[in-house]
């Protein structure tokens, strides 16, 4: 077994079998998080480097915890404290990290394709923890895991993705993963927040939240990225909240057992009302717990290829 690849860069490149292998492995690893001693020796002696060029607490901590539960050593690099402010390029930074014998580099970067670029230049395994508006594959995998855990399957479910799909790497990775696994995907947002020709991704487009929610099994709320308001996508936050906030009344339009997901951090009262965020339908904290198991699974599966394959340059 094991993944027959050096890196985890996109959902787009994964086969359905690879996704299933990651999810099954994560399921077996979840038990470790429930123990008194939350640590297994599987990656003893391996080094994981978190290289984050964008602020992130949740994702970085999740990767760090995942690595530590597998007994790997973890180093955190962030640009404000390192040589990047002195003008070093991403590749040079990474080559330096590699020279310190890093086995896995976890990269978050504002530029789409940064992880792929890095993966071509270093022998270490690279895990994409978000590259610009492109992809956030580990978020999609943990979302698939959570859906499977709560609903027993992904295939055949109706999943609604609500919010700024155009500028969301979470949405892109989730659409790819959900369609690969056979879910029916709906996207709903103001037209300014939906990319052109999104139908080509195999999704159905809605502009009114109420219409999209009817018959939904899973609702994925995207965070309203307030920093984008200056780009004139929206007249105001209040108007967005009025039209797209998930309220208890709107949640009632979905199936009775529907679950509500959110990648965090929450804007309470903007995209999700506090009473929905705290309701039994919300599985937002399960997503956080499952994120650690899924990232453990990935690190375990990627560290399999004992001898690093040569660079594909």
């Amino acid at each position, binding site marked *: 077994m094991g993944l027959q690849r050096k890196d985890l860069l996109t959902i787009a490149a994964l086969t359905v079998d690879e996704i299933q292998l990651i999810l099954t492995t994560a399921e077996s690893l979840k038990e470790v998080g429930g123990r008194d001693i939350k640590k297994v020796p599987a990656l003893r*002696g391996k080094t994981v480097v978190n290289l984050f060029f964008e602020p992130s607490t949740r994702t970085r901590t999740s990767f760090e915890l995942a690595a530590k539960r597998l007994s790997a050593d973890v180093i955190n690099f962030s640009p404000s404290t390192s040589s990047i402010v002195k003008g070093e390029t991403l590749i040079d930074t990474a080559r330096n990290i590699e020279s310190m014998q890093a086995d896995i580099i976890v990269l978050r970067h504002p530029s789409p394709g940064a992880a792929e670029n890095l993966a071509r230049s270093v022998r270490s395994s690279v895990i994409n923890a978000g590259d610009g508006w492109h992809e956030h594959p580990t978020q999609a995998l943990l979302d698939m895991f959570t859906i499977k855990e709560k609903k027993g399957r992904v295939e055949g479910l109706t999943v609604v993705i609500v919010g700024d799909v155009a500028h969301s790497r979470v949405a892109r990775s989730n659409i790819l993963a959900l369609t690969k696994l056979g879910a029916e995907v709906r996207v709903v947002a103001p037209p300014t927040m939906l990319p052109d020709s999104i139908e080509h991704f195999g999704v159905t487009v809605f502009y009114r939240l109420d219409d999209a929610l009817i018959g939904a099994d899973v609702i994925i709320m995207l965070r309203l990225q307030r920093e984008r308001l200056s780009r004139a996508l929206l007249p105001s936050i209040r108007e967005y909240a009025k039209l797209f906030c998930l309220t208890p009344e709107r949640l009632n339009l979905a199936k009775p057992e529907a679950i509500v997901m959110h990648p965090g951090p929450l804007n309470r009262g903007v995209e999700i009302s506090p009473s929905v965020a705290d309701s039994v339908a919300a599985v937002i904290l399960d997503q956080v717990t499952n994120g650690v198991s899924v990232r453990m699974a990935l690190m375990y599966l990627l560290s399999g290829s004992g001898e690093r394959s040569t660079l594909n340059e």
Partner: protein
Amino acid sequence: MTISLQPQERLLMDAQEMGRALSRISHEILERNKGIDGVALVGIRTGGVFLAQRLATRIQQIEKREVPLGELDITLYRDDLSIRKDQPEIRKTTIPFNISDMKIVLVDDVLFTGRTIRAALDGLMDLGRPAEIQLAVLVDRGHRQLPIRANYVGKSIPTAREEKVQVFFEELGQDDRVSILSS
């Protein structure tokens, strides 16, 4: 009942012998522990789990009480993870009771180098602090590489190092038996 053997297969134990060995081990477990107070069985995946289930059934028939039963996957504790080319599949560890202060009988099908048992001991210790760990195996084939010995042995079988000993299980749709497969 006639068993259809595979080519290159030499029979070491048939279904009856397997059954008798498990019955004897059940009695030995009860004798050594003076009943089943504080005793639990933990099978090592995959073969050990089937054997632990069978031992539990026999012990329950004798004692009229249920004995706690767990399943242990040792993959994460293997000592060859960093040198293997391919990662072995991780399966679930399910131990639905607290092992602290229990007398744990670890169950495996074949005792060979002892490395699996070393991994299982580490795995168990991470789950709690048992009062005692005992080892039951269906077959001891020798060639130990670590100082490990079983408390209960179904059958000791001298083998050559390069031979492969395999236990076949009804649970997997096979005829119950133990065989040497020569390559």
